[in-house]
């Protein structure tokens, strides 16, 4: 509801429902876990890695070692990690400008990713792309795209190639709620639907397009998945703060895609705990709302739940944490010590 009051909006935000895929999301931790214990620890490791990586980015941005715009993924870790954990190596991943989390979940080298943010020659794009343009074609991580919704047709084209080549590979495309008011969003949905492309549209609805609450800029409320009926694209909503729920919903969707059922759509309700970028003073929202979401921080709640249920020990969690802390510290060191790109690089990579 476009005219909903603040309290009304809060209650509707809180009501972010669990997965509509049959199994309830948070109940993923029962005997019939889709993820084994090892997998769960790995999911935690990835979420924690992203969190620590992002914190290190923020710190080095303050020091002036990272420049440009820096959009952190803090708070949204469960969505990217849960979704990408279901993919095969031959699937493509396409992301938006808040791409560090997806890149790391896809297995990009932490050192080279950090070096790219530092603009160094050892970076994934040799320092030519920066934070918003991470790429690793060997991992089929196809960017890092900074024009809102501009990555959607690219992803459709990758999926088109997979279909054309008669593989059962698929393309997972992330985008935010801000994308949904761009014409190209609707064009791409239609194109993917009529051509039955093997693509998973993954909406990370973090409730804000930069400083604009979606309730202010979208007719029809905060839920996008019902609108997919227009394109006859099956769509579900999932709790984006619950990594196992995300994983389950994604597995259902990609199974359908691999069977040739065409595009699927998942909307994860999630939240960025920080501003749009590090330049954002967040004058447009109250800290109370942020706190409410922070209570559901997946990097804290997930390992806690695992430990409470006796699936992992605190020691295991601590071990993972110290391993990650060390790798992030190493990445910062690697980036700091890496050379600046040679000026001759200006004229390379313009044309093939």
């Amino acid at each position: 509801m476009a005219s909903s009051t603040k309290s009304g909006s809060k209650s509707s935000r809180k009501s972010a429902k669990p997965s509509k895929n049959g199994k309830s999301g948070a109940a993923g931790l029962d005997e019939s876990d889709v993820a084994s214990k090892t997998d769960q620890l790995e999911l935690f490791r990835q979420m924690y890695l992203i969190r620590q990586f992002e914190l290190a980015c923020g710190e080095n941005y303050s020091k002036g070692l990272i420049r440009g715009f820096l959009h952190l993924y803090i708070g949204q870790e469960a969505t990217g990690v849960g979704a990408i954990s279901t993919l095969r190596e031959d699937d493509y991943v396409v992301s938006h400008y808040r791409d560090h989390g997806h890149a790391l979940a896809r297995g990009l080298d932490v050192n080279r990713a950090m070096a790219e943010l530092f603009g160094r020659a050892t970076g994934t794009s040799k320092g030519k792309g920066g934070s918003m343009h991470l790429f690793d074609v060997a991992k089929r991580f196809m960017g890092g795209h900074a024009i809102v919704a501009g990555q959607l047709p690219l992803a459709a084209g990758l999926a088109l190639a997979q279909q054309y080549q008669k593989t059962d590979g698929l393309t997972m495309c992330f985008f935010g709620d801000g994308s949904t008011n761009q014409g190209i969003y609707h064009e791409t949905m239609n194109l993917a639907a009529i051509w039955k492309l093997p693509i998973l549209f993954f909406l990370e609805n973090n409730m804000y397009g930069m400083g604009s609450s979606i309730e202010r800029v979208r007719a029809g409320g905060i839920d996008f998945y019902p609108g997919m009926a227009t394109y006859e694209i099956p769509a579900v909503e999932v709790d984006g703060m619950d990594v196992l729920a995300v994983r389950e919903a994604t597995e259902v969707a990609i199974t359908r895609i691999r069977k040739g059922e065409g595009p699927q759509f998942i909307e994860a309700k999630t939240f960025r705990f920080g501003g749009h970028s590090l330049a954002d003073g967040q004058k447009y929202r109250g800290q109370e709302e942020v706190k409410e979401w922070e209570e559901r921080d997946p990097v804290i709640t997930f390992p806690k739940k695992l430990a409470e249920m006796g699936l992992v020990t605190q020691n295991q969690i601590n071990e993972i944490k110290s391993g990650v802390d060390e790798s992030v510290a190493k990445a910062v060191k690697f980036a700091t010590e890496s050379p600046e790109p040679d000026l001759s690089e200006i004229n390379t990579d313009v044309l093939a």
Partner: protein
Amino acid sequence: MSQIVLREALKRGLEEALENDPRVFMMGEDIGEYGGAYAVTDGFLKKFGPERIKDTPISEQAFLGAGIGAAAAGLRPIVEFMSISFSLVAFDQIVNMAANLRYMSGGQISVPMVIRAPTGAGVQLAATHSQSFETWLAEVPGMKVVCPSNPYDALGLMRSAIKDDNPVLVAEPALLYGVKGDVPDEYYEIEIGKADVTRTGRDITLVSYGYGMRLLNEAANALAERGVSAEVIDLRSLNPLDIDMIVYSVQKTNRVVVVDTARRVGGIMAEVAADLQQKASEWLDGPVMRVGSADVPWPYNRGLEQEVLTNADDVLAAVAEGFGI
């Protein structure tokens, strides 16, 4: 050797690529069932099937963007805009994605895609259907822009464009689809980035591309009647721009007129003129004369449109004004 029209030359280039390379496929509005707005792809759907001749919705951003993705995944898409004026709605995809991807990814991605589009005014389609945006796209690093003026070049450039590993815009002058010319039966290509001296002369160099070449030929004939020998150069490629060939010619003729049929302001000839000023001033006996269409939106009325559009008389007037010949 056979004499064919430019439309047929383009068609031959596309057809042989579809026959020889399974990675090549086409997308565009009404290229299949309808046969293409200018009939370039007529019969393709029947011959190659709907997987390779893909009719698209009227969604230029989406299908152009999908072409980029398919190219990044190793296919070689050929994407058609029904008019270059319609490319505007997809400029974000062309510029921000197709042209930038390679650089942004540090060379990891290449986009071997051909974008085809009819270009130019002259058939009373008014402001939204008569523009020549190859001139805008020619300044974008990361892509190439070519424009043929005759069937021979159309086939040779199309072959090279399809083989190129970069995004290449092939701007097809709408007024020239029916123009006839000789095309050899033996295989040949035309290197992208090389201009062509289509007529040699001593006294003055005339430069244009695409539809403008028709005007230059008319002007050169008129000058010949007066005993003035004009050298005529067809850019063929707007990016890369073969400025060296023009400089070389000017060293001989010492006079030059550069001609756009697109709007004068911001046209590619502004670039050519500036380069010549820097690289050829010591050989020039006068100013670099520049001719282009009037800087107004394209009018519908025939009389108005013809007045706006550059013609051979405009070229001759520039020759007279600049050099008194």
